[in-house]
């Protein structure tokens, strides 16, 4: 299967339709996405996304690994929002196990998920503005994202792919200085966001390229399964953190931004406001951070504390079984809807009582959001294609898994 560069002309009754292949190697497709467009002059008559160029067999590989080992695979699916991904997976696993992490673990998880949301939306700004060639915002947004990556590294040792969550809690407690560093980042954020708005929202070129571009009607958004900022940018207040609260989100106050216009500019505004709301949640978490254990106390799920190993034979046996076998969730299946920066993410996990999942399916928000591309772009000029893809903020790892 080879990608061809230029198109082949086809004579139609009304005019000449040019079939053009965009991608999979293309600077504007946010990854290895291929879009086959049929052009009538500059107007796209038909756009067909072709995916599968990043298919990694993650879902099948998850069936061959234990629940703990799967956290490394899960990180790499939606690689810009790894903490949210781990949250989604372990919500489903904990629903099967029937346990809930202790309050401090819940708070830390929400904190990292919201910081990750900020980092992911900064990446949207960076990549989106790079596509429209506002390169200075690309540089600024990447610099701000580096501050979030420093926080992630301080906490889990890794900038991306943290592998930080565990069944029943998190792996380690917050290190010294983390709360102060997080506050510094969050305190500086409104100033940075105001600067982006000064550079973008009053920028004639940005507004011309985004306003009215890639419109998605309300009915299309719902019918095509879109979620996240794509759905909220088309006027529907649908956020899993509010409607189907999980992991402790109902303890915090925040708003869900919704815009009715349905164009790329609306989606951009939704994401900018979401960053401010994520900051609001993160500050509430930091203010109220409870003390206590960071993982559930069940010895069949979480490792015993090190000190206990010297005293108790039981603890040694539990440690041995957990490390060699892993957890055994009861047989059944579960699905918990969570909100990742791109939309609703959930894991359909089927267990048969063994230490490996029988099936782990990822409800990938970008997979369904991508289906809205033809609805957004048909009848519009070719130059809007890149803006449409950027405004959907897709991650190909999520689509292809």
């Amino acid at each position, binding site marked *: *299967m080879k990608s061809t560069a230029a198109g082949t002309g086809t004579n139609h009754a009304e005019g000449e339709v040019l079939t053009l292949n965009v991608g999979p190697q293309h600077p504007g497709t946010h990854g290895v996405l291929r879009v086959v467009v049929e052009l009538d002059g500059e107007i796209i008559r038909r756009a067909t996304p072709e*995916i*599968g160029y990043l*298919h990694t*067999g993650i*879902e*099948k*590989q998850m*069936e*061959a690994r*234990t629940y703990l*080992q799967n956290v490394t695979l899960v990180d790499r699916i939606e690689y810009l929002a790894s903490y949210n991904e781990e949250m989604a997976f372990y919500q489903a696993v904990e*629903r*099967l196990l029937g346990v*809930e992490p202790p309050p401090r673990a819940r708070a830390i998880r929400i904190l990292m998920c919201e910081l990750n949301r900020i980092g992911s939306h900064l990446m949207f700004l960076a990549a989106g503005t790079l596509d429209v060639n506002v390169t200075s915002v690309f540089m600024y947004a990447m610099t701000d994202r580096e501050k979030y990556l420093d926080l992630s590294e301080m906490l889990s040792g890794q900038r991306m792919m943290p592998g930080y969550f565990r069944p029943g809690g998190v792996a380690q407690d917050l290190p010294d200085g983390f709360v102060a560093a997080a506050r510094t980042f969050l305190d500086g954020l409104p100033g940075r966001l105001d600067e982006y708005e000064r550079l973008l929202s009053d920028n004639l070129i940005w507004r011309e390229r985004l306003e009215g571009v890639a419109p998605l009607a309300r009915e299309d958004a*719902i*019918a*095509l*399964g879109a*979620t996240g900022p794509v*759905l909220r940018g088309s006027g*529907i*207040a*649908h956020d899993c953190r509010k*409607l*189907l*609260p*999980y992991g*402790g989100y*109902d303890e915090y106050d925040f708003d869900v931004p919704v815009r009715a216009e349905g164009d790329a500019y609306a989606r951009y505004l939704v994401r900018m406001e979401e960053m401010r709301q994520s900051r609001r949640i993160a500050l509430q978490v930091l203010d109220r951070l409870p003390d206590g254990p960071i993982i559930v106390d069940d010895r069949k799920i979480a490792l015993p504390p090190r000190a206990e190993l010297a005293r108790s034979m039981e603890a040694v*046996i539990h440690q*041995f079984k957990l490390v*060699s*076998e*892993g957890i*055994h969730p009861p*047989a059944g299946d*579960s*699905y*918990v*809807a969570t909100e990742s920066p791109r939309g*609703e993410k*959930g894991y*359909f996990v*089927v267990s*048969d*009582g*063994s*230490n*490996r999942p*029988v*099936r782990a*399916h990822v*409800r990938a928000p970008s*997979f*369904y959001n*991508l*289906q809205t591309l033809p609805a957004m772009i048909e009848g519009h000029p070719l130059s809007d294609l890149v803006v449409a893809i950027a405004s959907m903020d897709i991650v190909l790892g999520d689509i*292809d*898994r």
Partner: protein
Amino acid sequence: MDRQAVNHESLLDRLRPHVPWGLTTPREERGRSIIFVTVGALLDVLGAARDRLGLDMLVDLTAWDRIPASPRFEVVYLLGRAGSADRLTVKVQADGDPPRLPTATGLYRAAAFAEREVYDMFGVVFDGHPDLRRILMPDDWEGHPLRRDYSLSEEPVEFHGHTPKVPSAIIPYFPPGSGSGSGGTTPPGGPQP
């Protein structure tokens, strides 16, 4: 935490009068309302869910392989309502060579990609789908990778004079109900490569 359990009763009660005879009793499990349907009743139930219950979003469509149980494939539809917490999980089990189901694209346009993926990964054919071809694997790929009897196709690392085990053979597999020590290193599912 279990706010997801709030809407079950009213949802299932509202669905009951519209449900044709090929339907098992709805139930609630782990925060979800679930119903099992037969293949023949599938489109009726999905239509009733969309038109009577207002579940206008297809949140997810997936499948899993229940081998050695029969019927072999279980296809799961997760329906939701935009802006609301109403959710319904519809499960249908299919068997055959190839297993066939009617397409849901007439009711939910979001099923287009999802049904292609289930076809690609499991071989379930959706009758009436406008463009049923492989979506994730190359067009000329043979086999359906997510079936449990399809090998993971791991490649052992090349060493001189020695073939080490592949990762799945090293990671211990403990079947359900195993005590300590009764598990081995045999991976579940199908034949080794």
